[in-house]
């Protein structure tokens, strides 16, 4: 028996087998990842890829269709749509990831505190979370934009706040399950400090469904952000933002459909790609949907 088992496992194979291979097996997720990589590339290299200043107005060249000078045409102020699209990708991705990251950090902290402390702390925290969850995300974000005022950072804060509830509730549920496992008690018995138990034993066992959820939330965040900007309560107008661009083009939809069409299509493709990746992540790592566990 010993001989058969004495084959040492290569050090990295476990990591690859657990995290990389399940994802590689999801074909549609890899397609989504490729598209997202393209968007990220466009966003990072926007200053070099853009042909014009995204906020430079040229009223002489307004409402032009696609041409050699303006690859995707111009809007009613004569701003270059191609350049605005690239900078818009930057903004959309930054707001999407930043708001989810912030919401995740706060939500997980609340969930951990509620799940581990229990008692009155848990009751108070979960009632606050219930309050946040009572409103649909868009309504909650709109209410906070009304309070905080316009601006890119405020969009991030408002969206992050609307994500705190789901993350907190999910974390608490998983923590309640993990905290009664024998290995937590065993660690306490060995004299491991509370902070180390949370960091080493609780968090790693609740983190994967949370990260899957975060991946799916990014697309919701981008959609909500565009929605807020479209409604005029998001980022401030000259900023190149897809939601704003769609709103600006609305009046000219019959004369110059490309003004709304270009950012609209870009947004739709990005959201589909993010959802593909999110679904792939869920299928690969969420134990409840795992087929070959």
């Amino acid at each position, binding site marked *: 028996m010993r001989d058969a088992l004495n084959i040492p496992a290569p050090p990295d194979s476990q990591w690859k087998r657990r995290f990389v291979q399940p994802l590689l097996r999801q074909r549609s997720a890899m397609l989504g990842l490729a598209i997202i990589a393209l968007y990220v590339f466009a966003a990072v290299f926007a200053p070099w890829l853009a042909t014009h200043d995204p906020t430079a107005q040229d009223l002489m060249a307004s409402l032009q269709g696609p041409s050699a000078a303006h690859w995707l045409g111009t809007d009613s102020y004569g701003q270059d749509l191609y350049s605005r699209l690239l900078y818009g990708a930057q903004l959309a991705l930054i707001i999407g990831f930043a708001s989810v990251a912030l919401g995740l950090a706060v939500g997980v902290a609340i969930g951990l505190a509620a799940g581990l402390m229990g008692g009155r702390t848990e009751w108070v925290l979960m009632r606050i979370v219930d309050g946040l969850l009572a409103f649909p995300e868009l309504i909650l974000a709109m209410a906070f934009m009304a309070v905080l005022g316009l601006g890119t950072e405020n969009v991030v804060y408002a969206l992050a706040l609307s994500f705190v509830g789901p993350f907190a509730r999910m974390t608490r549920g998983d923590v309640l399950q993990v905290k009664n496992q024998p290995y937590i008690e065993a660690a306490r018995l060995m004299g491991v400090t509370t902070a180390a138990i949370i960091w080493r*034993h609780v968090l790693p066992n609740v983190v994967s469904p949370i990260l899957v959820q975060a991946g799916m939330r990014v697309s919701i965040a981008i959609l909500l952000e565009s929605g807020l900007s479209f409604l005029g309560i998001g980022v401030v107008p000259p900023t190149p933002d897809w939601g704003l661009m769609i709103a600006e083009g609305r009046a000219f939809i019959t004369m110059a459909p490309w003004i709304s069409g270009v950012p609209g299509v870009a947004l739709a493709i990005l959201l589909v790609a993010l959802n593909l990746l999110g679904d792939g992540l869920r299928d690969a790592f969420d134990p409840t949907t795992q087929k070959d566990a």
Partner: protein
Amino acid sequence: MQEPIFSLLDVERTYELRGRGWFHRASRQLKALDGVRLDLQRGDTLALVGESGSGKSTLIRLMLGLEPASDGRVLYGQRDLSQLDAEERKRFAREVAFIYQNARGSMNPRMRIEDILAEPIRLHGLCAESALPERVAALLDRVGLPTGLLQRFPSELSGGQIRRVAIARALAAEPQVIMADESVAGLDVSVQAQVLNLLRDLCREAGITLVFITHDLGVASYLCEKIAVLYLGRIVEQGPTDAILNTPRHPYTRALLQAFPRFDMPLKASLSGEIPSPVDLPKGCRFAGRCPQAQAACRETDPVLTALEAGRQVACLFPVAAA
């Protein structure tokens, strides 16, 4: 005489059972342990034997400080377990190790065997960070496992391997006392023998004090020098293994021995009925209801654990005569 490392002074553990509903608030008490008195000397190997529900696991959880005693005191050395300060608690955590019945469940499924074994060493600062891999490998070698397992996760090991890893982890902090809960139950006979031999060698070589829970008298006699038989939360007979196995003085011990399968004898079901509920303990001797030789007095008087001969105690009004 050397001082005991563990002493239990009339330890009780009761659980409140809340009545259901608005009008049945009257709570009832479940007595999991009822007046347990036990002394453990340094270097002792003690087996706690009894049926399911006899309070073996509760007793060990109390001795580990995982649960408070409702009454009575659990002393570690000279100190009450419930009154240890932070410094003493840390020392206790290092000196007393516990091997869970569910070995796999007692290990974080997201950690490699290497990290699981390194954790207690690192925690108590037992060696320099550079010497850690060597030390972990030595631990694994000591329990007879190949070092190739270091990079695996607990779910990838077999039942026998994971139990040996659990033993290795218990040894990692260089403990003086090891407590084990049914550490060989449900294993193949061959693997069981390996694990038992390992535990026995460790205790003999390192002079470790061992408390071993089992319902298997064969395992108890192989591994331990002393046996304490529990029935319904009380020790009914206690003494050296040989004496207890050869001349059981308590009817319950005798019945347990007769229920143990042997090659040369047909098996007779000597114990009828279930262990009674610890919620409503019968008056008098708690074994009277199942005892083949119960007399009228047994239903009236609750016998206490009394010394019969040196190192031998029985809680019975009419002990079985020594054969």
